[in-house]
């Protein structure tokens, strides 16, 4: 299947942060979640993909085209949702549609108003008077109303209630059904990704930890629990991160089969959630 988004050895250097040679790819008809703690480089990655900031080195290809040279052509086919409202808050929805719609050749007025009605947004109210969730719904309606082939979102579900998050995930699911469209989004709410994502890209401190199929990740990673006296230096080295206290230890492994082979029935092995993977990877080892 053709790659709709290809990021290759992407690097961006700031004086106090470096996004360090990250590579990943997303195929058509799939959802990729970008996870990582605050300051990991998620927004920087999205800004680089959107050509809002200049890369130091590496390449980004979207729809097979160069993200900088062919930026104008590419952006016609991208729907974007950012972490905050950047639309003019003094305007109401009708006025904002008048501003934004002419920029898209394939603007779909009917689709836009279908989403506005579905999201129960009052078209006469100024965007400034909307709650954070309503503003996010408006941004989403714009992103979904011009036939975009790639939807890129930076923390779209933050600030949304669980009911709307569920509605949103259903919408995402429907979008990718034709297998031509893809969704790439960053989030802290890893439960959403467990429901919808096909691929997970995890970055920490500017470095790529992994970019793999979600099912493969959830199959390979596990939480190993056992008595603290088992934790010698060899066993500790098996874990990506662990926590231990007087009651016992819990460690994250990226190779459940190996952990089972080494530790046998002396430990309990549970499935790791994406949140577990993120927390243990970022925190490393800790003794309470």
């Amino acid at each position, binding site marked *: 299947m053709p790659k709709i988004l290809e990021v290759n050895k992407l690097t961006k250097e700031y004086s106090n942060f470096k996004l360090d040679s990250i590579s990943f790819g997303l195929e058509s008809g799939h959802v990729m979640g970008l996870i990582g703690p605050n300051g990991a480089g998620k927004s920087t990655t999205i*800004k680089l993909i959107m*050509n809002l900031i200049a890369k130091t080195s590496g390449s980004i290809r979207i729809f097979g085209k160069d993200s900088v040279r062919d*930026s104008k052509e590419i*952006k016609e086919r991208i729907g974007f949702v950012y972490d905050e409202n950047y639309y003019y808050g003094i305007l109401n929805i009708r006025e904002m549609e008048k501003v934004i719609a*002419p920029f898209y050749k394939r603007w779909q007025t009917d689709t836009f108003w279908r989403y506005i009605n579905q999201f129960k947004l009052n078209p006469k109210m100024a965007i400034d008077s909307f709650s954070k969730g309503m503003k996010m719904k408006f941004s989403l309606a714009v992103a979904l109303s011009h036939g975009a082939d790639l939807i890129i979102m930076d923390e779209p579900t933050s600030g949304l209630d669980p009911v709307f998050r569920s509605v949103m995930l259903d919408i995402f699911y429907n979008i990718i059904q034709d297998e031509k469209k893809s969704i790439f989004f960053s989030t802290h709410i890893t439960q959403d990704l467990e429901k919808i994502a096909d691929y997970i890209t995890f970055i920490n401190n500017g470095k790529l930890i992994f970019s793999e199929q979600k099912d493969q990740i959830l199959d390979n990673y596990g939480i190993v629990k056992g008595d603290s006296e088992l934790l010698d230096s060899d066993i500790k080295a098996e874990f990506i991160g662990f926590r231990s206290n007087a009651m016992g230890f819990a460690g994250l492994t990226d190779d459940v089969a190996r952990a089972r082979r080494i530790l046998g029935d002396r430990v309990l092995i549970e499935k790791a959630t994406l949140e577990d993977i993120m927390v243990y990877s970022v925190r490393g080892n800790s003794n309470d």
Partner: protein
Amino acid sequence: MINLLRKDFILLKKSRGFIIAVLMVLFGAFMWQKNNFYYLWSILMSIYFAMGYINSYDHKYNSEKIFNSLSLKRSTIVIAKYVSVLVFLAFAIGLSIAAMYLLRLLPVAELTRIINLSEISVVIILVAVYISAYLPLYFKLGYMGSRWANFAALILMFSFSGIISSSDPATQNFVARYLGVFVNSVSGNTGLNRGLIIVLLAVLILLISTSASIQIYQKKEF
């Protein structure tokens, strides 16, 4: 480009800036009869308010992030900003001329003069110099960082319009010596050719400024 201009006018219509700018133009058209300084001043102020309001909304909502995420070249965004000001200038001049014709209908002997082409050319070059000085700084430093520069450029043009409109003989002598083209233009002695030269000069200044702004904006990060 047209879509960006439409955006500016939709924003302007929603703001107090538009009303203030229109009132400024009407005030200038009225005061023109007594001293053309007021006219120059009012057009400059109307541009200052109109541009200031649009830029303040762009800053408040960080909307450059949106426009740079759309299918637009960065150079188009820059050029549209210049064109937007010039379109508003054309609107302001047109409105002021319409107001002057209306004032002629009033039974007041003094209210009979209509601005001529040479005088309009001075307005154009004043605005051209003003935005050519300000906009590159706006694109470099953003709205907040360039507010002082905007105000300084306005004051400079304000002072300049005061000098070239002065009826004081010493000032006129000074202006005639150093800024002969302008003063001749204002007094209407030079005709269309001088006016055209001034407009061409304005275009040249605008092109240099636009080119500088594009260079700056291409490197900007959002």
